[in-house]
């Protein structure tokens, strides 16, 4: 079986070294390749300004730029509001959007202030670097003051930057979805399920992981559309918290979760829910994009206790907005229908031009 990404054009950044130019892999490698494929189909030229990761796209005499999956229409305000949780709150809450409660800690904050924040929030807490990514140094289920202080200290080790901050938030209940949204519509909804296995009544958890990892779509890189499940301390802790070990044999159809975090980069699954979600989810997401001036294309992390029901304020919470969302998890879901994420990004980039919404319209 061939790997599903083999037909994608390859896209690299280049780098100038003393011994000549060298290729370097882009952080959003697969998403960039999906954009390159769509650009080629549509006759849009797509070229990097050397060693800049800034791509120039030209279509019918119109030039646009793309950097790290962010279209040039995205304003600095929108970029900042997505990156800074306090700003996200400030723009969404007045529009009646529900968000998790939390505070930022600065490096120079006193112990007294850290404890004040601890007391003011309902436990359990989630603690993470404010500028963090891919689930690094994220601490969940924090109940005690002792765990809180140690997690805060560890989260600050994310960088040595004196301006870095740590985010303390109340835990939100429900299932997390990534919703790719433009100013007009929802493009795709996936549930990112934490790394998991489903029992067959005969195989142990470690054998089930081995079987799941032999799926040719799962790669070793943490940046692919699907990633192999690595057994590390987080997996062992998660099993222990369920009174399980790697040798345990789950019954037929029993799903065992292996991590807290649902990142695809640590072996999570993306499952398409675009047609299953209640229309109120789409309304909320389009409202979010239109609440942030200069935001045109984003990935919304949406938690809800039931995606199929009409959403009420206490049912759902917005975790964050990503101004340069990955596209590959929508185009290559683990299960469900593929959605034209890269095409919609190009349609956003050249909004005034009539680009077709699907390839069948071109051919």
């Amino acid at each position, binding site marked *: 079986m061939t790997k599903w990404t083999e037909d994608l054009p390859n896209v690299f950044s280049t780098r100038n*070294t003393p011994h000549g130019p060298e290729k370097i892999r882009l952080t959003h490698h697969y998403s960039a390749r999906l954009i390159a494929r769509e650009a080629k189909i549509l006759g849009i030229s797509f070229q990097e300004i050397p*060693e*800049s990761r800034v791509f120039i796209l030209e279509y019918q005499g119109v030039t646009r730029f793309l950097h790290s999956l962010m279209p040039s229409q995205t*304003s600095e305000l929108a970029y900042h509001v997505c990156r*800074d949780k306090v700003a996200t709150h400030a723009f969404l809450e007045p529009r009646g959007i529900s968000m998790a409660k939390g505070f930022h800690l600065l490096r120079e904050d006193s112990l007294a202030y850290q404890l004040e924040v601890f007391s003011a929030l309902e436990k359990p807490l989630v603690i993470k670097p404010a500028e963090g990514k891919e689930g690094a140094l994220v601490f969940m289920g924090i109940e005690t003051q002792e765990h809180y202080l140690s997690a805060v200290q560890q989260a600050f080790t994310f960088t040595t930057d004196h301006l870095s901050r740590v985010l303390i938030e109340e835990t939100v209940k429900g299932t997390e979805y990534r919703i790719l949204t433009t100013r007009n519509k929802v493009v795709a909804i996936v549930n990112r399920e934490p790394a998991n296995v489903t029992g067959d009544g005969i195989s142990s958890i470690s054998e089930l992981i081995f079987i799941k990892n032999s799926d040719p779509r799962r790669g070793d890189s943490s940046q692919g559309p699907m990633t192999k499940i690595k057994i590390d301390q987080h997996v062992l802790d998660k099993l222990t918290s369920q009174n399980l070990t790697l040798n345990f044999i789950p019954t037929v159809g029993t799903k065992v979760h292996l991590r807290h975090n649902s990142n695809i980069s640590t072996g999570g699954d993306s499952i398409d829910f675009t047609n299953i979600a209640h229309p109120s989810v789409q309304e909320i997401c389009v409202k979010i994009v239109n609440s942030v001036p200069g935001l045109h294309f984003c990935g919304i992390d949406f938690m809800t206790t039931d995606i199929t029901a009409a959403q009420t304020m206490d049912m759902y919470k917005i975790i964050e907005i990503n101004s340069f969302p990955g596209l590959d998890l929508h185009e290559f879901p683990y299960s469900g229908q593929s959605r034209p994420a890269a095409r919609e990004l190009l349609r956003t980039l050249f909004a005034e031009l009539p680009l077709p919404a699907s390839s069948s319209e071109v051919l």
Partner: protein
Amino acid sequence: MTTAIGNFHYSRYTPQGLIKAFSMGTSAELTLLAAQKYGITYHEIPGTRIIELEYQGQKSYFQGQNPFAQSGIALFATSDKTVGKNLLIAAGLSVAKGFSIYKKDPEAYWEEVYNALQKPIVVKPTHGTQGRQVYTSINNLNTYKAAIKDILPSHPSTMAGVIAEEMFQGEEYRILVNREAVLGIINRRPANVVGDGVTSIQELINRKNKDPRRKNDPNNFLVTINVDQHVQAELASQKLTLNSIPAKNQLVLLRKNSNISTGGDSLDVTDQAHQTVKEIALKAINAIPGLLFAGIDFMTKDITQSQTAGSYIVVETNESPGYSIHDLPYEGKNRHAAEFFLKILFPTLELKLDE
């Protein structure tokens, strides 16, 4: 009611509620004073340091020195100095010869870069600000490696790293531009004192720091000179101490770096610069997609002469330039940068500049 410079604050959400938490910085304060002049209303969106302004029914936003009207790509392309530099190269401008080093590169590559460059060299973070962690005048491999080791862990991104480049000999300038015109040119002179033939360097520093415009705040438009190990080292390299008494009119530089934030002086030279300098600055801002307002760091052997490829370099473009130095220079004319900044936010605004 008019608020004076130095009295504006940003707020912060705490469990106690919203509190006055952070001083604002002179550039933003000047912008708000200018907003008052033009009847533009404004307020901070609580807890965000984002200022929302409204003029004739239009809303616009800024934060610090950053006009939020411009494209987010401008921020990306300038906050990573490798990207910014390569966009300048693509536009045909002269930059210092150099290479980027990323976290995954082996020490052998560090050495390869070191050997390929003419000494002395400069080592700086790809994502640094305000001259932090910039190492200049590096002449040996050990100092070079120590500088890289200091910088690499300071930013989480895998694409964040170090730029090593040849050190250009010349004067350093900050050129403020929008996409159409040069608004002001400042010569940034490293923290310094001028001798009077009787006073010690320490006493000259104390005297200079008494200037009420200088504050012990790196975001202010003029900053006190704080004697630290860099100052001590710079004096030692000139065979001086804090007790030395410089001759009358002798200029003693106290640092290598010329940042205003570490006590440097801002000298307005807008009218002395050759026309070619202005052309280069305009080419530089137009090299960055979506950038509307920029501070160009520029070095040249002689700013009054026609610039050629070997006579200047563009060091970098800053998308969030402290522009108060152009309005309140240590020496020279007010260039009304804050009002031009407002015009970025509200393009229909007609400026009425005071003489």
